[in-house]
């Protein structure tokens, strides 16, 4: 069942097309990663999904209802958090959450604010103004705000940026817990690919305003089909391996004590066999299968020194 459906969404600023005719959906209980390099169109899309940027073309519907025509009803069940928006600085954590609870007409307001403060470990900070908090603490308050109305759909724009590893892990676990318990759906952007692999069910990859991939993190990584076979060798064996790689037309990267071979995942065992047959002796070996990060770097493309350039 779709909770969000986007059809042919386009945003054009004068001559620049920021989002180019994209279509996708978010299922109930799904955590959808929304990835892409800076300037790819992620934030523009999220702003349109929140109704704070008018699309040039296309349709957005939530829960089977047209967003524009049912904005207030839909926004009651939606929320948003971004590391890049601020809360009123002079107000305390508790005051920010209280007025937000009023905005959403939460009935057991005091209990809800108390509960959300406890959940996001804000008890000691609740009477401090936002201006007194660190960047990470502010992000936590922003996240607490985004769950105050018990939303059915949450849009999270880099929710764990600026958080320490322990808090970031807590947030990931909380999102997964909310999905398990309440079946919430999440659209999730992050530049932390390991986090995306851990949390998301599916990933949309956007670049130059177009969706260029829509699959699970595992399948996207697999689509690269390039495994890094790293061998540590003595100098004379290192030379032999370089010659071998050239003969077999295998791309390599040479380090001081090791050589990395970029091969297809399916060739790993046969190439290792041949290396052994050639009596090339190695002291250590590591095999790195492609990850979502490799996929990101390849698709992001022209980053100097990227994986794509080496291959």
């Amino acid at each position, binding site marked *: 069942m779709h909770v969000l459906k986007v059809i042919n969404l386009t945003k054009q600023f004068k001559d620049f097309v920021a989002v180019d005719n994209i279509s996708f959906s978010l299922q109930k209980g799904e955590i959808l990663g929304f990835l892409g390099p800076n300037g790819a169109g992620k934030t523009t899309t999220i702003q349109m999904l*929140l109704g704070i940027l008018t699309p040039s073309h296309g349709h957005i519907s939530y829960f089977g209802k047209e967003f524009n025509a049912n*904005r207030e009803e839909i*926004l009651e069940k939606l929320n948003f958090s971004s590391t890049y928006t601020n809360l*009123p600085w002079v107000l305390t954590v508790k005051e920010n959450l*209280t*007025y937000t609870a*009023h905005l959403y007409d939460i009935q057991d307001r005091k209990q809800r604010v108390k509960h959300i403060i406890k959940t996001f470990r804000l008890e000691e900070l609740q009477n401090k103004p936002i201006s007194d908090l660190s960047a990470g603490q502010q992000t936590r308050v922003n996240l607490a705000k985004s769950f105050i109305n018990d939303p059915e759909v949450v849009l999270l724009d880099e929710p764990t940026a600026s958080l320490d590893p322990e808090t970031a892990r807590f947030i990931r676990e909380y999102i997964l817990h909310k999905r398990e318990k309440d079946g919430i759906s999440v659209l999730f952007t992050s530049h932390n690919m390991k986090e995306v692999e851990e949390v998301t069910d599916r990933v949309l990859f956007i670049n130059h305003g177009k969706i260029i991939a829509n699959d699970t993190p595992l399948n996207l990584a697999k689509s690269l089909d390039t495994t890094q076979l790293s061998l540590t060798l003595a100098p004379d064996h290192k030379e032999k391996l370089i010659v071998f790689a050239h003969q077999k037309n295998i791309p390599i990267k040479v380090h001081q004590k090791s050589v990395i071979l970029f091969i297809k995942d399916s060739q790993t065992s046969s190439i290792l066999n041949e290396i052994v047959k050639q009596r090339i002796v190695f002291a250590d070996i590591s095999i790195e299968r492609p990850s979502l990060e490799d996929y990101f770097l390849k698709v992001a493309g022209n980053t100097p020194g990227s994986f794509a350039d080496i291959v």
Partner: protein
Amino acid sequence: MKAHRIYAIVLRYLYLLRRSYDRMSDMFYWPAIDLIIWGLTSSYFSSLQGGNQQVISILLGSLLLWMVVWRSQYEISVNLLEDLWNKNLMNIFVAPLSFYEWIAAFYTLGIVKSIVSISFAAILAFVLYHTNFLQYNIVFVLYLPILIMFGWTLGMMISALVLRFGTRVQTLAWSFPYLVSPFAAIYYPIATLPPFARKIASIIPISYVFESGREYVSKGVVDYHSLVVALMMSVVLLILATIFLKKSFDKLLQKGLVSVY
């Protein structure tokens, strides 16, 4: 329109008021300073006229009425700026708040804070200069809708310009009312103005209120006809300002709400 959402925005600014010395001084300090300066000035002029108490009543009454205009516009334009400075506009509008609920919250704040400021100033005027404005209460109540609506009109026009051009035009929130004030003939009769300025005054509804106020204090008569004209003009101007602000807001949504930061 949902009352709880209007209340939420009102609450947000009341929290701010509690914690901000800027907002507190806007509400009490500046009205007190204005009142003391104008009170002393009018007392001096009164002494030149053999202790004529009417001079004090006219000047301080005019000041109190101007405070209503100023407060009403200020609550709209400065509260908008507050959310721009805090980069909080996005957080507000991802909630199910409508544009008109947002404006209604500012209207409410304008009325509440006007009442507080004007009451404070009136008490101060009574204590310091023995001027009792309660004797004019019925007439003053007639003036209030015109003054408040014109304050809202100014506030919305300034806000519309801020939404279009960003915080680089934020100085209008403080300066624009004072650009209008000479034509509003707050402290002097319209007849004092040069002919071209009188024409401008004739399309500023609050000029009728100040004129009427002076007439009432000095002669005890109220020109209801001119007040009705002023009221109608205020309604028309308020509608036009609301349309202008809504159009600016819609235009901003074309560029994205964050683009105004």
